[in-house]
Structure formats: structure tokens, C-alpha cells
């Protein structure tokens, strides 16, 4: 049995497997403490954590894919043509 306030040690692989859920804050408090204790002393995992979080922030504006020029106009034309038939 682990004492209530004891932080159990986990290794790099464990941390990496949980990094997504940790970033999204979908993780139980005991595991969170273990990950934080590990990150505090592991530059390797900290780099992976920072990079992963930055990646998600970077793409979250939804602008990664630019609509091709004229996309909306062509779509409207197509809809006008097809919807009248339907």
C-alpha cells in the first residue's frame, strides 16, 4: 500500500505514455503529482512535454489548412446546381 501523501516514482516511458492526458488535465491527482515530480528533474521529458503542448497550441487556431482559392464560390455553384435537381 502506498501512503496517501507519498509520491510514487515513475520513469520516462510512463510519463510519455501519459503526456497527452496530462496536457489535457485528464488524469488522476496521484499520477499528476508523480508526473510533476518526474518533470521537475528530467530535462528530456520536459522538452517533450513543452514541445507537445506548443504543437497543440500552434495548430489549434484551425488555420493549418487553407481553403483553396475560389473554394466557397465553387461550392455555392455546385450546391445551386445540385440542390435544384434534388
Amino acid at each position, binding site marked *: 500500500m502506498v501512503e496517501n501523501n507519498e509520491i510514487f516514482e515513475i520513469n520516462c*516511458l510512463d510519463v510519455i505514455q501519459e503526456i497527452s492526458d496530462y496536457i489535457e488535465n485528464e488524469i488522476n491527482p496521484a499520477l499528476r503529482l508523480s508526473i510533476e515530480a518526474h518533470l521537475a528533474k528530467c530535462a528530456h521529458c520536459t522538452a517533450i512535454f513543452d514541445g507537445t503542448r506548443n*504543437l497543440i497550441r*500552434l495548430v*489549434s487556431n484551425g488555420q493549418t489548412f487553407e481553403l483553396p482559392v475560389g473554394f466557397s464560390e465553387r461550392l455555392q455553384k455546385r*450546391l445551386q446546381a445540385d440542390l435544384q435537381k434534388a
Partner: protein
Amino acid sequence: METAANIANQAESSIIERIVAGEKDLFYSLVRPYERAVYSAAYAVLRNEADAEDAAQEAMVKAFQHLAGFRRESKFSTWLIQIAINEARMKLRKNRPHLYESIDEGKQSNEGEYIPRDFADWREIPSEQLNRKQLREAIQKALDSLGAIYREVFVLRDVQNMSIAETANALGITEASVKTRLLRARLQLRDALAPGLDGGWNFGEGHWKKVRPW
């Protein structure tokens, strides 16, 4: 209490009812907010602009034809994305049947078993200031290097900000699979883009703060 999202949903529902009742001209205004999402989902599958546009148009037409059958068990946007994904997959099968086998569901082993490169690797590559266009190209190139099942999950969840449940629904997989694939996709993309994620890239005026508040 009425939330803004609730009110928007109600507005959407009433537009849908009017279209089904015969006001066809309203359809474009219904789908217009999702143009980019539909195109992006199709692109995630097809990786080609012209094919993705084709599939997106096809999906919109199908959505119209089946609108009366939309049961509101999911959000309209999720339903639309689901159609776009199906449309894109059918197109992929038609265009490249010989390739389809390799990206079929479950054919890729070691899901989630991905070991990130050592961080020393990416500290050695100099960060560079990239403009928006270069940045977009770098992300797309990195996305192209992912297996299809990882790219689809990443685009819906992280680029389009759909929830885990919506992503699972749109792709027809479990939430657990979404999470496993998402982890793999994120780690692999971090490796591919790490030189710039070291702080060299400008994140702009934080749209991410609204959707990714951590």
C-alpha cells in the same frame, strides 16, 4: 440557463427544419461555418487539394440529400464531418485501391508504442523564424509523414478542436482509440517540428488561450 452554444444549436435546428420543409436556398448558410472543417477532414484522408475539394463538395451535397434523416443524436457539424470522412475514404479507395490496404484500420501495428527522439536531437537543429505560410507548409509536411489513422485523429481533435467523443463519433472508432492515436500523432509531430517548437515560432495573439487554456 441558455448558453450561447444552446442558442446557436437552436438556430441551427430551426434552419435545418426549414430546409427540410423546402427552403433549399438556406442550405449554404447552414454549412458555410463548416467549410474549412469539412475540407480539412477530407484533406486529412486524401492529402491532395483537388481531391479534398471534390470530396468536400460531394459531402455537402450528400448532407443535403440526407438532411431529413439527420437525427440530432450528434451535433450537425459532427454528422457533416462524418459524411466528409466517408466520402474521402471512398474516393481514396477508388483512386488508389492498391494503396488502400496499407492504411486500412488496424493494419498498422504498435499503436501508441512510439518513443520520441531524444531532445538533444532537436536542440542541435537551429530554430528559425518562420512566417505564417512557411509554418503552415512545415505543419502540412509533418502531417503528411504521419500514418493516415494518426493524421485523421490529429486533424479532427487538435486542428479542428473537436472533442474526443466527437472525434470518435466522426471516425467510427472508440474514444480509447482516439486517445492512443492522438498520443502517437502528437509525439511524432513534435519530433518532426521540434526545431520550431523550442520557442522559435511565434504563436501569435493566442487564439489557443480560448480553446486550449492550459
